């Protein structure tokens, strides 16, 4: 029995079920999907086995410890204890896909060389069975010399079995180099370890053999994460080691891999048997259609359009319900609490601000629901395959498809997902254009403007003008992203063609419990995160918009008297007060800058607050307009916007041109502090986030300017 608390790392090829096992053990909710490369960072949780609290670490998938991408590197660094000074795990669970044993065991054989206790978890036994593969875990265990447990992570009792095995494991270390490197490879490794790695690097002992093998096959330090001196000597030593292998008749890039595969072949030849299976699987049949030369791109386009349509129309009834709830709730609070500042603050500040944003929850839930279904089935990998040719032409990569599509939900997970793109140039271009994808934070602004100012006329029989505008905004974002990528492709010199070696996982039914759980989780995050910022900003804003208190002059204006431009007969006292508040004065100050775009000072304040997060815009407008409203009446924000009149000109503040200009501004401007922060983190410099902010916002200003000037002169 393991009485000591252990740190247990989950390692394995992408898409083998590591996060599924992690969630089952820890009760946490790591994202799970049928796409290789969903987990891109290290995640820690705990599990109790036999009364002992163990630490569990979920890692990104890797095909090899000889990493090619950032996500794979994180797995390797964690295993050898170089990742952010974390300790080496006490036990590694190598999770393998039983339906694809040989390739999965390649990584397992590498991990066994690290001198850490290893247990092999044969996962997806149900899938293997379906493919007619029979595996004898005991035979594999005896030929590899490590404990083996066969499970299906979907099944709760089998997770218990895994826990039992963990608690009974004596933590013996596997025999290193069991795959028997031949003499020349051994000689080359020894040379590198003794003449270079031991003397000049800080690679821990346990990882020296693996690192030597990595250097021999890479032939260079490409992307080394540790420090060393005297690069020249290192290169010479690597070259010498490679020459030893070449003299023995081998290829330094192939020697290790071939020996490992030989070893694996011997270990599994008896243990795994394939029965004759039907030639054409369900996956093959679906793929014949979905990845078809012509049908494939058409299907991809239809999938996108269907998703936008669902967000646009299916969510409406729920949104109306929420809207009503907040208006009624606000009225109820206003009438129940005694009049005064607290009442104003709650009703005009907090409830108005929050209501303006919560209303978009249904759309956001629909969006995430769709993305999770697409990811859960395995379609996303096909989308990457089908779109790769086009993506490469415009300076992106097939692997950019998934980050970009996550961008419809939120740029932040999208930018993180670019870790699966191996080439730096492809990755940076993807990051730089990703915020153009119409993220869910823009939805509130789009939806409000469309509902209020775009007529709901029917066009061509089946489409509505509102729907077309909505789709248009999504397409606009995509087109701008493509356009920006094409420009950046010219700016950054092209290297040679980058690899696109991606596994297409077999189709699976999405796990509905996971889809619903993840969707609900995203909804919760949206409400709490947006809620926090919005409540804070609403309160501050309410204060700035309500003070200092100024009385409207009591002179009764007659037609004949001189006209005071700051005062108008049609204006109510609340509106007068608002214009003379701190916020009003500040807004007036910046008005000249945004006036050419068709925006008044109230929109201006919204633009400023929305640099914290886009959805704050709607909350801000809601707060401002609620303060302006005469006591006792309460209408929805949409009505307030439509009825808003400029007291100086007597014309409506919003025209269609203003609404379009505002939507274009939101489509293009970089108004999200979290995105800036994540780009800084992922690129490790301020250069990229600064460039992103400047080019996007400049583009937004110019485009809105043109749109408004043309629109208002038509």
């Amino acid at each position, binding site marked *: 029995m393991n009485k000591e608390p252990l740190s247990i790392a989950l390692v394995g090829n992408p898409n083998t079920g590591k996060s599924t096992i992690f969630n089952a053990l820890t009760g946490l909710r790591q994202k799970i999907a049928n796409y290789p490369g969903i987990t891109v960072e290290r995640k820690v949780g705990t599990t109790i086995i036999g009364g002992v609290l163990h630490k569990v670490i979920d890692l990104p998938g890797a095909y*090899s410890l000889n990493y090619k991408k950032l996500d794979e590197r994180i797995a390797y660094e964690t295993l050898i204890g170089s990742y952010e000074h974390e300790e080496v795990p006490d036990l590694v669970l190598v999770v393998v896909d039983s339906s694809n044993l*040989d390739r999965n065991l390649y990584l397992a054989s590498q991990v066994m060389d690290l001198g850490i206790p290893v247990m092999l978890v044969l996962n997806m036994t149900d899938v293997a069975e379906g493919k007619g593969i029979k595996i004898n875990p005991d035979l594999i265990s005896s030929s590899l010399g490590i404990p083996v447990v066969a499970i299906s992570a979907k099944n709760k009792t089998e997770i218990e079995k895994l826990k039992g095995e963990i608690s009974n494991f004596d933590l013996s270390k596997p025999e290193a180099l069991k795959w028997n490197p031949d003499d020349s490879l051994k000689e080359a490794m020894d040379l590198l370890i003794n003449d270079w790695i031991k003397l000049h690097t800080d690679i821990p002992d346990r990882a020296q053999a693996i690192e030597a093998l990595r250097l021999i096959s890479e032939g260079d330090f490409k992307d080394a994460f540790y420090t060393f001196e005297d690069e020249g000597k290192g290169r010479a030593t690597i070259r010498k080691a490679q020459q030893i292998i070449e003299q023995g008749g081998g290829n330094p890039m192939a020697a290790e891999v071939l020996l490992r*595969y030989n070893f694996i072949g011997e270990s599994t030849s008896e243990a795994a048997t394939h029965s004759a299976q039907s030639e054409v699987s369900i996956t093959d049949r679906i793929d014949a259609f979905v*990845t078809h030369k012509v049908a494939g791109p058409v299907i991809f386009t239809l999938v996108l359009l269907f998703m936008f349509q669902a967000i646009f129309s299916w969510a409406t009834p729920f949104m109306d319900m929420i809207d009503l709830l907040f208006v009624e709730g606000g009225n109820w609070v206003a009438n129940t609490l005694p009049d005064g500042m607290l009442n104003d603050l709650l009703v005009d500040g907090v409830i108005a601000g929050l209501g303006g944003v919560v209303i978009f929850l249904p759309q956001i839930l629909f969006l995430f629901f769709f993305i999770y279904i697409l990811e859960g089935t395995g379609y996303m990998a096909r989308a990457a395959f089908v779109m790769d040719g086009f993506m490469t032409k415009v300076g992106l990569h097939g692997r950019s498809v998934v980050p970009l599509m996550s961008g419809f939900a939120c740029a932040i997970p999208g930018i993180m997902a670019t870790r699966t793109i191996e080439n730096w140039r492809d990755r940076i271009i993807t990051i730089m254009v990703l915020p153009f994808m119409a993220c869910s934070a823009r939805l509130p602004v789009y939806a409000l403007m469309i509902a209020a100012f775009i007529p709901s006329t029917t066009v061509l029989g089946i489409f509505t003008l509102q729907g077309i505008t909505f789709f248009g905004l999504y397409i606009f974002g995509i087109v701008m992203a493509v356009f920006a990528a094409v420009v950046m492709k010219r700016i950054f010199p092209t290297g040679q063609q980058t690899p696109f*070696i991606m596994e*297409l996982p077999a189709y699976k039914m999405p796990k509905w419990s996971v889809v619903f759980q993840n969707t609900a989780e995203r909804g919760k995050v949206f409400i709490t995160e947006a809620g926090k910022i919005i409540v804070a900003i609403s309160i501050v804003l309410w204060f700035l918009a309500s003070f200092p208190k100024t009385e409207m002059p009591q002179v009764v204006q007659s037609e004949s008297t001189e006209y005071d431009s700051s005062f108008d007969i049609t204006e109510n006292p609340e509106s007068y007060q608002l214009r003379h508040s701190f916020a009003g004065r500040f807004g007036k100050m910046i008005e000249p800058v945004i006036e050419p775009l068709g925006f008044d000072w109230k929109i201006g304040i919204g633009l400023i607050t929305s640099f914290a997060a886009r959805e704050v815009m709607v909350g801000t407008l809601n707060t401002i307009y609620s303060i302006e409203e005469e006591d006792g009446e309460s209408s929805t924000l949409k009505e307030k916007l439509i009825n808003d009149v400029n007291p100086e000109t007597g014309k409506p503040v919003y025209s269609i041109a203003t609404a379009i200009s505002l939507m274009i501004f939101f489509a293009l401007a970089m108004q999200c502090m979290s995105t800036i922060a994540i780009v800084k983190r992922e690129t490790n410099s301020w250069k990229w986030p600064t460039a992103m902010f400047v080019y996007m916002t400049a583009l937004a200003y110019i485009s809105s300017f043109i749109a408004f000037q043309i629109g208002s002169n038509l």
Partner: protein
Amino acid sequence: MALFLSDISSPDTYRVKNIQGADTTRLLEMGITPGIDLKVVRKAPLGFPIEIKVRGYLLTLRESEAKCIEIEG
């Protein structure tokens, strides 16, 4: 004359003869080892990438990778 995976145009099964070029290690690691059979399943809309089936799973390759895979004629 050596025949490479990038040269073939018909979806069929081929036996791998040798792997060479810059991506050798990676292709081998993915299980495309000499002597193994691989099936070309289809090509993407613009001709590349291609989709192959090897060791029972599906994998995509671009032209530059297909050029590294020598097959038996």
